[in-house]
């Protein structure tokens, strides 16, 4: 009897150590790699690196056009996906009843979320670049990225809207509010922090993506900044791809510097989203 207890104890200890080790092996490389990129990339970052045009076949100079391009693409994506995504979330949370149509919408959202990013690229090429003749442009790339981010924004916004207590809606309606007035004045303001968090997380994904813009809007190298939404643009993730695979004898420092700037851009957005979420949770009255 005593022996089995000992055995069980031993097995438990072994098991726990094994699982802890697995978790350790998962987390340590993440931390290690982050520190490594920061250490390697930080020396490259200077005012000139951030604000100058690339020189010498991108082997020297800065990454300004790529930063601007990623900014344009992110804003462009937001312009299309944010209103559409929030409106779709409002529909699902406030208007839709449980029927086959709603189920179809949910299936469609799940499907959109799972489509490979490069397939979005193909679709953008087929529809926006060629069929609608937007050409390889910021417009075409932004539209492509918008559709890709849509499921993220819809799901997060719907969750935020649904978390607003039902009683607020009932009271507002009982005071003579219409459905839209109730949404506009009570539900949306209360759900806003959650919606913003979801929007930023969606846009963060768009900002870091390369495959969807490969054939819809990304330019290998541009000697000047894009002048209109119909111009192609450089972008940070694509630029990192280019300088780490397509340009021979590329200085490591510039590569790591570019990677670091991209990470800061993307994770900075993530941080903002996290801060908004935790602040709103602390302030929430219900």
């Amino acid at each position, binding site marked *: 009897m005593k022996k089995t207890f000992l055995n*069980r104890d031993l*097995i438990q200890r072994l*098991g*726990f150590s094994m*699982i*802890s080790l*697995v*978790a350790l092996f*998962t*987390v340590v490389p*993440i*931390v290690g790699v*982050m520190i490594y990129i920061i250490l390697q990339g930080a020396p490259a970052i200077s005012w000139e690196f951030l604000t100058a045009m690339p020189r010498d076949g991108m082997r020297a100079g800065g990454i300004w056009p790529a930063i601007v391009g990623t900014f344009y693409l992110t804003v462009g994506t937001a312009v299309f996906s944010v*209103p*559409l995504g929030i*409106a*779709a979330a*409002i*529909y699902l949370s406030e*208007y839709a009843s449980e029927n086959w149509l709603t189920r*179809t*919408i949910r*299936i*469609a*959202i*799940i*499907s*959109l979320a*799972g*489509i*490979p990013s*490069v*397939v*979005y*690229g*193909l*679709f953008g090429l*087929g529809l926006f670049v*060629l*069929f609608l003749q937007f050409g390889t442009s910021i417009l075409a790339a932004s539209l492509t990225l918008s*559709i890709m981010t*849509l499921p993220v924004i*819809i799901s997060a916004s719907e969750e935020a809207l649904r978390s607003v207590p039902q009683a607020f809606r009932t009271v507002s309606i009982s005071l003579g509010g*219409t*459905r*839209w007035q109730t949404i506009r004045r009570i539900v949306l303001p209360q759900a806003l922090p959650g919606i913003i968090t979801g929007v930023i997380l969606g846009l*963060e994904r768009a*900002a*870091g*993506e390369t*495959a969807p813009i*490969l*054939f819809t809007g990304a330019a290998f190298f541009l000697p000047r900044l894009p002048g209109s939404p119909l111009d192609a643009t450089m972008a940070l*993730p694509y630029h990192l*791809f280019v300088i780490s*695979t397509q340009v021979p004898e590329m200085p490591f420092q510039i590569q790591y510097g570019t990677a670091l700037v991209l*990470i800061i851009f*993307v*994770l900075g957005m*993530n941080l903002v989203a996290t801060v908004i979420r935790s602040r709103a949770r602390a302030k929430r009255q219900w």
Partner: protein
Amino acid sequence: MLAREHMEKSKNFREYAITRLIRVSGYSAIVFVALIFFFLLREGIPALAEVDLGTLFSTRWYPIEGLYGILPLITGSLIVTVGAMLVAVPFGIGTAVFMSEIAPRWLREVLKPLVELLGGLPSVVLGFLGILLLSPYLRVLLDLPTGLTALAGAILLGGIAVPTIVSIAEDALDAVPTSYREGAWALGATRWQTIWRVTLPAARSGILTAVMLGIGRTIGETMTVMMVTGNAPVLAVHLNSLFSPVRTMTATIAAEMGEVASGSNHYHVLFFIGMVLFLISLAVNLSAAAIVFRSKKRAERVLS
């Protein structure tokens, strides 16, 4: 009175217009899925007319000579995905179990954002690290002619799938009622036995969903594989293929679409591959959703 009536009317119209707009937006997801499918069909189906099936399902991908055999690309995707899952499933589920069942609260609060950090890294950054750090290391360690292999891709894609698996599996473990665990403890089970015989089985459908979605992410991943797998479209049917360069369906599209003339055979075949990818992702994601749906139904039946 007239002014008031006028106001009511314009308000009614606004309400009507906004409701319509919201409704249409609600349907947009369906429209986009249909549009995507339509354009993939429109550009991909001609491939079946231009390239005969024997060539399409042959083992040589060499577009310059009109050889469009997609089997090497499919096996390439397959071997990288299987390899990635061999990495991601144990590490992902292990980490989820650690976070949900073993780690103290504070440690969990530290680990969660770190894993999310990995999930937030752009895939191009992982590809970049693969080229500069992982593949040279693998080359030396395994004494290979090049480190840019299916293995490098599998390891990195495993890393990409880990955050997906951890977050969904952890949710599933959290959702197991505490009373189940307490019941097992009351019967004299150790914590380890409880995890192994009670908690994990109770969360199995959630964990299965996590793995499915991990697979979905892996098959669709593009930039990382394109950068680190060496891009050699050779048939990968042997375990040794893990240690040689391969090329996936996604990487092929990404690498070649930029250089083909639109409307050419090559262009249509690339769209055809996109269509195959679309259908695979649809199948994977919808079956994952079906698992969730079924287990929800079962839970409702048990609880009511």
